Every structure is written in structure tokens, then in C-alpha cells.
């Protein structure tokens, strides 16, 4: 299992996960009025009599940017583990939302994962499986770290012949 700690594999997973999140944010950022309708259909953040419309509207406006910023950080490597933790948190939330609509029998018609218009992917078991796979990737980036080059101590003797 040493390959799991290989830097190239670690970077590949991190960049791949980041690319998925950046791609997922594009359509939602470009068409917020379509995305907010999908958020409404989940009935988790509202609109309801108690919550009103503001939480769902704010979620629809902010969530795509959390995805986008998280994706960029995963790709660039800046604050990579924190970004991966945030990606994991989002995926747990998505899993809870999809499980909820499946449990309640709510037909959201369009999961709002990568596109927001036209014929979209529904919320079903295949979506849960792909979210679990992405969650595994996020946890890997958080937990597993590739071995770094051993720091050279000032007290270490110089190699022979130098």
C-alpha cells in the first residue's frame, strides 16, 4: 500500500477532486436563478413557513462559490488539507440531502450536481455511490500525507567527499 503515500498519487487525487468541485460550480454560478429552484425542491433549507425563503436563497448564492474556492485550493495546493476537509463536509451534507429526498419520496427531478438546466441527473442511489467515492477521496487528502523530503539538520555531518 506504499503507493497510497506516493506524492504523485496524492497530488492526482487532490487535483482530480478539486477539478470536480470547480466544474460543479460553473453552471450554478452562471445560472443562480435556475440553481435556487433546485435548492427549493430539496425542501431542506426552505422555503418553509418557519424558515421563509432567505436561507434557501443564501445557500443557492453561496454554495457554488464554496465549491469553486475549495476546488481551486485543492488544485493549487494552498491550504489543501483544510480545503479537502471542507469538501468532505459538503459531500456529507449532499449525502444527507439525497438520502432525505429518497426517504421522503421527494422527486427533485434534477440533482443540481453539475448542471442546472435541461434534463438532469436525478437524486438516486448512483448519486449516493459517486458522492461516497468523492468523500473517500476527500478523506484521503485530509488523512494521508505523502512523505516529505527529510529536513537536513544543521548538525548532520556532510557526506563524505565534500
Amino acid at each position, binding site marked *: 500500500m506504499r503507493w497510497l503515500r506516493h506524492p504523485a498519487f496524492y497530488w492526482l487525487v487532490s487535483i482530480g477532486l478539486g477539478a470536480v468541485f470547480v466544474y460543479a460550480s460553473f453552471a450554478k454560478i452562471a445560472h443562480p*436563478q435556475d440553481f435556487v429552484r433546485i435548492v*427549493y425542491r430539496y425542501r431542506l433549507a426552505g422555503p418553509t413557513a418557519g424558515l421563509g425563503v432567505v436561507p434557501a436563497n443564501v445557500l443557492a448564492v453561496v454554495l457554488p*462559490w464554496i465549491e469553486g474556492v475549495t476546488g481551486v485550493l485543492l488544485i493549487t495546493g494552498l491550504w489543501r488539507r483544510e480545503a479537502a476537509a471542507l469538501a468532505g463536509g459538503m459531500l456529507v451534507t449532499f449525502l444527507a440531502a439525497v438520502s432525505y429526498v429518497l426517504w421522503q419520496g421527494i422527486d427533485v427531478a434534477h440533482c443540481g450536481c453539475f448542471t442546472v438546466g435541461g434534463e438532469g441527473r436525478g437524486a438516486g442511489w448512483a448519486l449516493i455511490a459517486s458522492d461516497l467515492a468523492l468523500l473517500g477521496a476527500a478523506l484521503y487528502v485530509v488523512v494521508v500525507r505523502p512523505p516529505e523530503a527529510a529536513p537536513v539538520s544543521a548538525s548532520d555531518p556532510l557526506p563524505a567527499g565534500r
Partner: protein
Amino acid sequence: MPLRPLRIVSILACAAVLGLCWNGLSGRGFALTQNAYLQEGDVEVGAPEARTRLDQGALFLDARPIAFYEMSHIPGALPLPEDDFDRSFAKIEPRLRSSFDIVVYCSGFGCEASHLVARKLRERGIPAIVLAEGWPAWTDAGYPVKEGPRP
């Protein structure tokens, strides 16, 4: 090295600022305090106002899928499901054109069908308003419902 929560909070704050700025400045955004289903020309009334209109003879239209209508509906309402609009509209068009007060409702909170049906009616020259928050608002208020397939 442990995760730094402050970084996670910073990412969230940065995304929130970007999202709110984009919504306000891009020209693609929407009002955060308003139901996104509402468009220019849409008129909504609350359940008490709708009840008053029902008592005064308003025609109610059920925009939900027909199976929901057949389970229960507002007394006197006619089915006009958004997913089968053209066929259902043709059946009841004379009745619609002779009604001056039409209220459309659907399943409430995540449902846009009533707004879509009201807009389609307006495009055909038939004014219609929407019951805000739809069926749940009506039943939560304890107003009468009728079970069964016929109005």
C-alpha cells in the same frame, strides 16, 4: 500537523463574500428576500384571502399532478396539472374564460407549478392569481378539503 479551523472559516467567508457580490453585481442574481418563483406580473394571495375568494365564488385550479388531485383537493377546484397543461386546458377552457376570479395552487414550498400555470393562463388572456405556499398553507389553516376524483 492538525487542521487549522481558522483556514476553513476563512474559505467559507471568502466564498460568501464572492457569492453575495456576484449575486448583487453580475446582473444574473435575484432578490434574497423574495421567493425565486415570483416573476414580474405574478400575484400571490395568502390562505385567508383565498378562503374569502372561494366563499365569493372564485374558481380554484389544482396545478399538481392529477394523482394528488384525485386524493384530495380544495372543494370546487378543477384539475389543471402543469405537467399535462394543454390537454387539461382544452377540456375546461370555456369555464376558465367565463370566470373572473381564478386562484391556482400546487404543493406549496418547493413547487413552481402554480406559478407556471398562472403564467400560461395569463398568456392566453385569462387572469389568474396564485395561492402563496399552496396546499400546505390551506390545510395548515384548517380550511375544508374534498377527497375523491370529482370536484
